[in-house]
């Protein structure tokens, strides 16, 4: 039995296309990784443009760009999801506590949030990553995750504050339920849609952030991500040497992933906020 909300959502073309692109890429990356288990292995001659043997050409060390790309998508997705979960956890927790408790707790938490909001995430990430010698994907996710949460906290806080004054909240409070229970049973289910949208947006941003870090050489120290491929391309002056197959496809994949996630989030947003639909 397909829930009516899904039926309604799928009527939107925007959602279908973007969802299709995203899921398609996920599947390619998972199955592709099985086909190309060792992307860092030297597979052929260097600097070759796309050909039958190497559909996306080779890089400076003769590695197949297609293999690198597929693994790169997988790892970028991994970092995207992990960083998004970290940001979500921090942002939702702070937002809920701040919105629910109010008063001094609220003011101080929001002050911290605003401080981190003003500081440019990239600079902070660069700083932290610069002093870390070994950067595994989890570390990178962590660095991204702890700088991306402020807007989530703020948004969650407003939602909580508006929910707080609704009737069912008074009922629970009068029934003497403990705070934690109210949060879990009353507030969170009402925010489920919003939290999901926030997750999608966070994931999109995290993948872009990872690529940015990699471009300065502060990405993962071992392993392949879309960002690393772009980094190697830049280090080897791929643009000026005309090696378009090196920097083109990774960028396109990155944009496709991030943009499709953004489109999904927008379509969901339009569905849940009737005023945006213009009724």
């Amino acid at each position, binding site marked *: 039995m397909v829930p009516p909300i899904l039926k309604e959502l799928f009527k939107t073309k925007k959602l279908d296309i973007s969802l299709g692109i995203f899921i398609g890429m996920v599947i390619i990356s998972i199955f592709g990784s099985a086909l190309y288990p060792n992307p860092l292995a030297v597979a052929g001659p260097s600097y070759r443009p796309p050909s039958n043997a190497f559909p996306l050409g080779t890089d400076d060390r003769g590695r197949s760009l297609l293999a690198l790309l597929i693994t790169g998508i997988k790892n970028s997705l991994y970092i995207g999801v992990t960083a998004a979960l970290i940001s979500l956890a921090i942002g939702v927790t702070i937002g809920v506590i701040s919105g629910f408790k109010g008063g001094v707790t609220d003011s101080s938490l929001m002050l911290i949030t605003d401080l981190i909001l003003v500081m440019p995430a990239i600079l902070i990430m*660069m700083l932290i990553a610069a002093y870390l010698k070994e950067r595994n994907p989890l570390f990178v996710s962590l660095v991204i995750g702890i700088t991306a949460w402020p807007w989530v906290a703020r948004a969650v806080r407003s939602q909580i504050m508006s929910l707080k004054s609704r009737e069912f909240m008074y009922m629970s409070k009068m029934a003497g339920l403990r705070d934690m229970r109210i949060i879990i049973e009353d507030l969170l289910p009402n925010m489920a849609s919003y939290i999901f949208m926030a997750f999608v947006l966070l994931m999109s941003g995290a993948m872009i952030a990872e690529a940015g870090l990699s471009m300065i050489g502060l990405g993962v120290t071992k392993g392949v991500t879309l960002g690393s491929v772009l980094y190697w391309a830049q280090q080897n002056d791929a643009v000026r040497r005309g090696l378009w197959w090196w920097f083109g496809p990774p960028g396109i994949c990155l944009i496709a992933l991030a943009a499709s996630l953004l489109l999904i989030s927008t379509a969901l947003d339009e569905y849940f906020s009737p005023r945006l639909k213009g009724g």
Partner: protein
Amino acid sequence: MSHRGKSLKKKLLSLYGNPFIRFVSRRVGFLIITFVIFLLIIFALPRFIPGNPLATLLYAIREMPPETLQLKQKQLIEQFGLGKPLEVQFYEFIARLFRGDLGTSYSYPGIKVVTMVFTALPWSLGLLIPASLLSWIIGNLLGALAAYKRKTLIDNALLPAFLTLTETPYYWLAMVLLYIFAVTLKIFPTSDAHNFLYFPSLRLTFILDVLWHWTLPFLSILMGAIGGWAIGMRSMVIYELGADYVSYADSLGLPDRKVLLYVFKNSMLPQITGLALNLGTILGGALITEIVFNYPGTGFLIFRALTQLDYPMIQGAFILLILTLLIANFIVDLVYAYVDPRIRTGYIGE
């Protein structure tokens, strides 16, 4: 209290009652706190991160020839005050900051960090300021257009374009533009801010040369930043179009373009706040874009410093960048306080 003291106190209190002054002083206070916290982070990071990078560095260079080793050790100890208690280290750090001393570069011995950063900063600002402002203006206009033409072909085509554009990293756009216009079509130069054979001066040829080199980096940042503004403005305008003042003005017979102007005016206000919030992101993207072009701005400077582990340079560049960013934030806040009548009318009083 003496008579003069009392009237001064009254004057200060009345000043504080003014919403404009209140707003501005609150923002200044906040930005100062941000800067202080940032300084703390800069101070703490190299000393507290697991694996103590400074100790690692000292250990890594132990194999070096004695003279270099001694020099490097001396630099490190002097620069970071290693060996002294933490409070002293921090005090020296702040004191030096106030004197405008950010140390000397490791990679370019003898050259002060401030000198190098201040040489690079104008190039970055030359890209950032026009690109941020123009992308904000154009993005907002396009967003308003898309909102006005909702449910028509224009909006249905523009919206996905904006969404895709906003997720396109500036530096990748840079690569594409560089490839198409510089490498393939050879219309624009492939790197640097100006032809090295030209001596910097205010002669027209030099200025034109600089502009010629500036175009592609500028366009990359411009195009990359437009999408975000357009999307935000579009949502704002769609929301405002349903506002009560819109239907009222409409019912009094005011023409559509006039009502649209009202909506635009009202939607711009939060967009100014948005500009302040997004300055940091645009800055970050622009820095990485410089790398693609070998453009001698602060981004390229930081990149080189990171590669060479030139810690004083990394530290100094970050501090000055943040300072610039906070000042820019403050300017935008001032503009907002002036433009929003709810804050500005503090002057007129009630």
